[in-house]
C-alpha cells in the first residue's frame, strides 16, 4: 500500500486513512482543523502521539523524524496546499509550478509540460505564465499554489481550504484535480468549507471537536 497515514494528535485524535481516500476534516472554527493538517505536514511539531506516513517502503513518524527525513517526505510523498502562496518575488508562475518537479528529479521538458497542463486546467491564461504572481488576483495566486502542489502527484496531499478564494468554474476545476488524484491512488486529507466541494470529493468525514471535548 502507498500513501497511508496514521496519527493521534490534538488531545488524542486518531485517524487512519489509506490510498484512494479523500478524508474531509470537519469542525467549527478554531476546532483545530488547520492545526491537525500542520501536524501531519510537520509544520507544527505534535507534542504527543505520532503521525506515521508510508514513505520509501517504510513508515516515517513525522512528529519525531529528523529534519532531513521530513524534507524527503515532503519532496516525494506528501504535498500541502496552503491558503496563501508564499514565493520568491520575481519568479515566473510557470517556474514556481515546475520547481517541485525539478526538485524531485523530473526532466525539465517534462516538468514544463506538466506545469503548463496544470495551469491550463486551472484556467490561468498563458499570458500570465511568464509573470511573477505578485500582481495576480487572490484567486489566480491560489490556483498557482494549487498547481504547484498537484504538479508532482504526491501519494499524500493535504489541502487547507483550497477553494476558498475561487469562483464556481475554478472550484470545479479543483474538484476534478482532486478526483483524478484519488483515481491514481493518492490519499487526500482536506478542509473544505464549501459544501458542494466537500460532497463532490470526500469519501468520508472526520469530525473534530474543540479540545476538551472527546473525539
Amino acid at each position, binding site marked *: 500500500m502507498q500513501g497511508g497515514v496514521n496519527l493521534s494528535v490534538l488531545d488524542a485524535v486518531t485517524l487512519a486513512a489509506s490510498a484512494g481516500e479523500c478524508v474531509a476534516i470537519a469542525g467549527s472554527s478554531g476546532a483545530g482543523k488547520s492545526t491537525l493538517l*500542520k501536524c501531519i505536514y*510537520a*509544520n*507544527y*511539531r505534535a507534542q504527543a502521539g505520532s503521525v506515521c506516513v508510508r514513505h*520509501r517502503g517504510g513508515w516515517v513518524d513525522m512528529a519525531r523524524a529528523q*529534519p*532531513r*527525513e*521530513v*524534507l*524527503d517526505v515532503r519532496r516525494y510523498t506528501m504535498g500541502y496546499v496552503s491558503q496563501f502562496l*508564499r*514565493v*520568491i*518575488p*520575481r*519568479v515566473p508562475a510557470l517556474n514556481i509550478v515546475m*520547481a517541485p518537479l*525539478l*526538485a524531485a528529479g523530473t526532466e525539465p521538458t517534462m516538468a514544463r509540460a506538466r506545469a503548463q497542463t496544470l495551469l491550463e486546467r486551472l484556467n490561468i491564461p498563458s499570458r500570465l505564465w511568464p509573470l511573477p504572481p505578485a500582481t495576480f488576483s487572490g484567486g489566480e495566486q491560489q490556483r498557482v499554489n494549487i498547481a504547484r502542489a498537484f504538479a508532482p502527484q504526491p501519494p499524500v496531499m493535504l489541502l487547507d481550504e483550497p477553494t476558498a478564494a475561487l469562483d464556481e468554474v475554478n472550484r470545479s476545476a479543483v474538484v476534478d484535480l482532486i478526483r483524478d488524484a484519488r483515481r491514481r491512488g493518492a490519499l487526500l486529507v482536506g478542509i473544505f468549507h464549501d459544501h458542494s466541494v466537500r460532497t463532490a470529493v470526500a469519501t468520508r468525514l472526520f469530525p473534530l471537536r474543540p479540545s476538551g471535548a472527546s473525539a
Partner: protein
Amino acid sequence: MDESPLLEVQELGYSYGTRAACAGITFDLYPGEVLAVVGESGSGKTTLLRCISGQLRPDEGRVLFQTRAGEIADVWAVSEASRRLLTRTDWGFVHQNPRDGLRTDVSAGANIGERLMAIGARRYGNIRQEATAWMYKVELDAARIDDSPQAFSGGMQQRLQISRNLVSQPRLAFMDEPTAGLDVSVQARLLDLLRGLTSDLGLSAVIVTHDLAVARLLAHRTLVMQAGRMVEAGLTDQVLDDPQHAYTQLLVSSALPA
C-alpha cells in the same frame, strides 16, 4: 537519503579574550542543503561563520568537511596549505562588509576572474566571458567590467562579491548577510539565483541573515542564536511557525509580515 554530511560542526566555541562569542555549537549540513543562522546583533553569527570556514581558529570543538574525493577533512587539524586549498576550490565566502571580500586594486572583471584562475582557468577570453555572464546574473552592468570596485555602490559591491565567490562553483558557500543593503528587486533576483544554484547544482550554503523572510524562502533549516548559544534549530517552517524557545518567539513576533 543515506549520503553523509558535507559539513559537521561539533561543540564549537570561540572567545575574544575572556568573552565567549559563541559556545557549544553543533550542527550538520548535507549536500544541497541551505542553513540559515539568525539571531540578534552581537549574538556571534559572524564569529561562528568565520570559525567554520577556516578563517578563525576556534578555541573548542571540531569542524569536519567532506572533500570532493569523499574524504573527511578536520578543517582545523589539516595543514594551512590544505585549508587554503579548500578555501580556493570548495568554498565561497561572502563577507558582511563587501570591501572585506573584494580586491580594490584590480577591476571588477578581474575580481571575478581571479577565482577562476585560482582553480586553473587560463584562457583570457573564457575568463572574461564568464565574468560578463556572472555580472549579468546579478544584474550588474557588464559595461563596467573594467571599473574598479571602488567606483561601485555598496549594493553593487555586494553583488560583485557574490559573483566572485560563486563563479568557481564552490560546493559550499558561507554568506554573511548577503542580501543586506540591496534594494528589494535586486534582493529577489539574488534569492532566485541562490535558490537555483542550490536546487539545480546542489550548492550547499550557510547563510547568516537578520531577515526571517530570507530564511523562509531560502533555507531548509534554521538555527537561532542568542548570546553565543544555539537556542533553537530545526526545519525553517517549524522554527518560524511553531517556535519553541522564548527568544525565537520574540524574534518571530517582532518581524514585519513577509
